[in-house]
């Protein structure tokens, strides 16, 4: 361990002297976070979600609720409502991918509300796939909250004869504990209410790969300098050399991603979700990226080959993993492909966090990233045992 720290220390000194460390750990993350925040803004952009609405009831109350929901500026900003005639039409639209989910107002909706105040809404979501899962649930939950509020308000209006605005106030006062009375601040995954909260983590992940690559490139540079051979002639295990480089890469990646997050939160007020979850995701992702990158540079003997591969790998994973293109807008097979990348898993993790999930919801992404990290660490160990020249 002492040898690893000696080698990592030398690497850090070198990177501090040539300013790489400062660039990777501080300047680039802050600049990136700023650019994204300025480019995407803090306002809630249209998320592009299309929600099908089927009014089987056709009552005055159901029409009132649907109009209220459609007219709600919060919903209108992030969801397009598409009225569909039948449940079958809604199912077909779901199959065709024309809508993310559909809300069915049943035939007895108005009567039931009048009678018991309860809701009886059916929510249709696609059978499988992330788009029909997380994204659609987010959309529907958000709309449901509004539906609930509006339904209550409508019921109050009908029962008391008050105007709609007053009825809503009345309903809110009587049901103050019900969160549905106000629009839920729930952020939709894949179509974030604040796009920076989706692309911010994406940029951090892409940047994490680049930061690891800085350390990996220094291994290639040592090959060229001849210092790698000289180090190997010392009583130092091959794996210790790689571990030292990996440690620096891991630290750079982690600190760079933390700086991206920190500047995004502190300077622009972005909310990436549970801080502990964010740090854990960053940590395990940095480990996975480090393992993968070090495995890559252990292969090709020429520096140019490996350096080119690092760049290709970082961008390919960023695209496939939904860091540059919204994962939840990709075709479903591409969403499955994204699971082959650490970025894809981390993106899912951040989607969970930004939609209000906590540590307990991160099991899948964390486990997958840990498996990737351990798997590639094993590859590195085997490759480097055979020699490191």
């Amino acid at each position, binding site marked *: 361990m002492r*040898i690893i720290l*000696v*080698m990592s220390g*030398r690497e850090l*000194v*070198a990177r501090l*002297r*040539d300013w790489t460390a400062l660039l990777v750990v501080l300047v680039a993350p802050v600049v990136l976070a700023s650019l994204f925040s300025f480019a995407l803004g803090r306002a809630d952009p249209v998320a592009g979600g299309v929600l099908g609405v089927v009014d089987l009831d056709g009552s005055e109350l159901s029409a009132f609720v649907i109009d209220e929901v459609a007219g709600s500026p919060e919903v209108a900003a992030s969801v397009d409502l598409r009225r569909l005639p039948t449940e079958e039409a809604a199912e077909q639209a779901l199959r065709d991918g024309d809508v993310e989910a559909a809300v069915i107002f049943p035939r007895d909706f108005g009567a039931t509300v009048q009678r018991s105040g309860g809701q009886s809404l059916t929510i249709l979501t696609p059978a499988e796939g992330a788009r029909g899962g997380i994204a659609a649930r987010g959309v529907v939950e958000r709309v449901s909250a509004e539906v609930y509020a509006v339904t209550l308000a409508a019921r109050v209006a009908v029962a008391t004869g008050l105007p709609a605005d007053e009825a809503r106030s009345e309903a809110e006062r009587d049901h103050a504990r019900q969160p549905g009375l106000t629009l839920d601040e729930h952020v939709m995954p894949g179509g974030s209410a604040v796009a920076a909260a989706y692309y911010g983590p994406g940029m951090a992940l892409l940047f994490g790969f680049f930061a690891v690559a800085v350390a990996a490139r220094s291994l290639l540079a040592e090959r060229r*300098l*001849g*210092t790698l*051979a*000289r*180090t*190997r*002639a*010392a*009583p*130092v*295990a091959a794996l210790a050399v790689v571990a030292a480089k990996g440690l620096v890469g891991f630290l750079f990646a982690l600190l760079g991603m933390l700086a991206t997050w920190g500047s995004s939160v502190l300077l622009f007020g972005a909310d990436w979700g549970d801080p502990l979850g964010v740090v854990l995701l960053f940590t395990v992702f940095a480990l996975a990226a480090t393992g993968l990158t070090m495995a890559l540079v252990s292969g090709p003997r020429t520096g140019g080959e490996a350096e080119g591969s690092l760049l290709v790998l970082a961008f390919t994973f960023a695209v496939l993993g939904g860091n540059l293109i919204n994962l939840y807008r990709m075709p479903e097979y591409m969403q499955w492909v994204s699971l082959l990348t650490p970025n894809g898993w981390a993106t899912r993790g951040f989607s969970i966090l930004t939609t209000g999930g906590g540590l307990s919801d991160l099991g899948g992404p964390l486990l997958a990233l840990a498996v990737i990290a351990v798997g590639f660490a094993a590859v590195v160990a085997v490759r480097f045992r*055979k*020699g490191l*020249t």
Partner: protein
Amino acid sequence: MLTAALECEGLVKRYGSLLAVDGLKFSVTEGEAYGLLGPNGSGKSTTIEMVVGVLIPDSGTVRVHGHEMARHPLRAKRLVGYVPQEVALYPDLTGRENLRYFGRLFGLRGQRLRRRVAEVLDVVGLADRADERLGTYSGGMQRRVNIAAGLVHEPKVLVLDEPTVGVDPQSRNAILESVERLVAGGTTVLYTSHYMEEVERVCDRVGIIDRGRIIAEGRPEELMATLSPGGRAEVEVDGDVQAAGVAVAALPGVAVTVADHRPRLLLVTWTEGADRLPDVLQALNGVAAVVRTAAVRPSLEEVFLHLTGTSLRD
């Protein structure tokens, strides 16, 4: 009894279809300076990389003071100092920082590390420039730090791979003097070069390597004796050079030629007897006046040419 500091047996290394080292075998006794002499591409550097544990041989063994490199690499490497052919140091660190770093890799620390760094800086004569970045040094100075980095942990065996390539004469001499001092101090040295004069100057024993094999081995004078078991001499005469040549050539077992560029100089070679020069002088008595005589040793260059049919610098 002489102890083997370094033993190589049956070393083989292939790169695809190229057989770089072909069953190479040699040993270096403790305190000995052994020269590995061969042209570029003969397998010297590949051999050296296997000796220091950077390269794993396809077959064969390397032992350093009895520790087999393949089985106990850390123990074996601890005893070896490696000076690569190219300067292998960090240009963004100072000379002293480079030495401290490589010292730490060999487990040195604290006072001992500081003392050793100061000592090796003295050995290579760079104590006054030690705190400047390596990138600001001249090529020769960098080469000297390159050597110092191989010495900092007081290795029992120092392996130098062509340490003077591309170095100006002054630095080259400084490097050779450093190596001579180490040899005099009892350090075992494995020295590769394609400069004959360096090997002759530094090494006790020489192995001539060609196409990955040792084709001749021995003390420099022994190797030169294989080329000319008798002796050679230059004889400068004043008078009838042709008659002098005929008189010397009449001696049994003696051959003579007149030097092309110096017409009064006879080059005399004999194949038997330790010294036939007195016979030569007697044969010239009354034929021509002898101005000067000098014994001529064959060079290792000629030995190499004789053995391989190629020049060392090819």
